[in-house]
């Protein structure tokens, strides 16, 4: 059984078009995604799409997967579970990053792939690694205007990664074409720069850029650019919450995107019958993720007693793809101090509108763990569950306490993995059927 939150399988990279698209030119992503979905449909794998998993529990010899679909809760029992929860996008807080019209860089790709829509009429595209050029190029392909491309990476950063990229000449060639097209079109590319603030009240009107020092700190000399939308990316981080709730530990691996779930190469974890595949155990990219899925499936098959030999060729291919993906992840982390561009009045926690200053005051008065800041100021108690502030909060604690980021764990994740309406959990019930335990002692 394949369970997916989206309407169709494919994840973020191979996200399918929604029903409003009758026809559109194919792209490498749409071809790969369609191919995958065709193979899935032919395979007989049962699929539960539009389905959210809100909790995973071990009960006896089974895992119980709690689902939410069409407003109703359900549960599945299974001897083996593969969590392929992928990544979430990080964003560096800057003044105005909460203004309507600012969307994630990976978020923009979802908009392109699913709805084939543009984020605005003139967009600033900012972020690290190859994604920023992909997004800018897609805006051009869909008839939009790129006001500027802004990337913390320098051309020297890219040159230094060439040796790991030659393993994938196809991707190297594709990326080169994106950059060349932008240059031909006269789109300004700000290498070694970042968006330091976004202006606009209820809609973006422009951004201010700055050049970055090697350690990610902003250098003087602001550049203003008019735009009605911003695609802002801060790299990808593994989604570890589901694995953590199932009892898998996390470890700090900045070269793999930050805190990653602990798993072996074959996907096994410390929990019996629980396996991890793809970016959730380290950001290595789509190509590596597909190969990893095949490796982990073999491990899961062996767990349920079906003969499935490991395949050394597959593992070699995975290692090769990982090298490319890891190089891109490292590139995305260069000059990316998660708090380096936030002024004291910059909002760090979007859900609760908490500024950097508020968080720092809390830390100075003794809240020196992610959980303590969460408890005291609600950074992480809002509806996003801390996904968009935890890196910044950890960095602020690290700075104040002069400790390594590896010592500052993110806040304890809590179920539900996604928000769930009470009515969906309660369902239709008779009061008299509620399994009421014995009352407390008098």
């Amino acid at each position, binding site marked *: 059984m394949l369970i997916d*939150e989206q309407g169709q399988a494919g994840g*973020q990279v191979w996200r399918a078009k*929604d*029903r*409003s*698209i*009758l*026809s*559109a*030119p194919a792209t490498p992503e749409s071809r790969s995604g369609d191919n995958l979905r065709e193979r899935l449909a032919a395979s007989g794998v049962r699929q539960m799409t539009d389905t959210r998993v809100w909790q995973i529990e071990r009960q006896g010899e089974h895992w119980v997967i709690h689902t939410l679909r069409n*407003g109703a809760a359900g549960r599945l029992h299974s001897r083996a579970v593969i969590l392929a929860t992928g990544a*979430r*996008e990080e964003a560096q807080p800057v003044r105005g990053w*909460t*203004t*309507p*019209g*600012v*969307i*994630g860089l*990976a*978020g*923009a790709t*979802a*908009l392109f792939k*699913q*709805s*084939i*829509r543009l*984020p*605005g009429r003139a967009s600033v595209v900012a972020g690290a690694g190859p994604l920023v050029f992909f997004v800018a*190029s897609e805006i*051009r*392909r*869909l*008839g939009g205007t790129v006001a500027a491309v802004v990337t913390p990476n320098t051309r020297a950063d890219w040159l230094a990664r060439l040796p790991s990229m030659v393993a994938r000449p196809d991707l190297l060639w594709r990326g080169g*074409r*994106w950059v*060349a*097209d932008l240059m*031909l*079109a006269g789109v300004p590319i700000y290498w070694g720069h970042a968006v330091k603030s976004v202006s606009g*009240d*209820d*809609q973006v009107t422009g951004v201010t850029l700055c050049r970055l020092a090697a350690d990610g700190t902003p250098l003087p000399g602001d550049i203003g650019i008019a735009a009605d939308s911003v695609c802002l990316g801060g790299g990808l981080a593994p989604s570890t919450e589901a694995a953590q709730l199932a009892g898998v530990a996390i470890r700090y691996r900045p070269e793999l995107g930050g805190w990653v779930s602990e798993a072996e190469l074959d996907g096994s974890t410390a929990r019996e019958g629980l396996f991890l595949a793809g970016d959730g155990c380290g950001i290595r990219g789509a190509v590596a993720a597909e190969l990893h899925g095949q490796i982990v499936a073999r491990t899961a098959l062996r767990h349920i007693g079906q003969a499935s030999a490991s395949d050394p060729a597959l593992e070699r291919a995975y290692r090769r793809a990982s090298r490319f993906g890891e190089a891109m992840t490292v590139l995305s982390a260069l000059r990316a101090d998660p708090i380096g561009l936030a002024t004291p009045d910059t909002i760090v926690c*979007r*859900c*609760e*509108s*908490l500024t950097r200053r508020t968080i720092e005051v809390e830390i100075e008065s003794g809240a020196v763990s992610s959980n303590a800041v969460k408890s005291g100021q609600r950074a992480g108690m*809002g*509806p*996003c569950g801390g*996904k*968009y502030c935890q890196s910044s909060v950890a960095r602020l604690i690290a700075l104040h306490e002069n400790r390594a980021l590896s010592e500052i764990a993110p806040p304890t994740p809590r179920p539900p993995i*996604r*928000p769930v*309406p009470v009515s969906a959990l309660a369902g239709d019930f008779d009061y008299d059927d509620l399994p009421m335990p014995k009352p407390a002692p008098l």
Partner: protein
Amino acid sequence: MIRLVPDHSARIQRTEKVPFTFDGVALMGCAGENLAAALMQAGVLHLRNAPGDGAPRGAFCMMALCQECVVFVDGQSVESCRLTVSSGLVVKSRR
């Protein structure tokens, strides 16, 4: 001008436009289109106010994590990036 990345905008065919409302304002969107995308296309970016400071917010992550694009349909809060447009859909905000 030489384009290495072709312009595909004219080659995209969509479903028919259907009416829906956002806080009572009549809008049009393609049937079956992602609601967050349709609102963005209709120029509606300001979807809610942050509870802390009342500041305007709009769709951000586009993958149902950040909860910034939450709207109300039939009184139930739901991420607009996980909904689709249908004829007569009534969308409300708590702006």
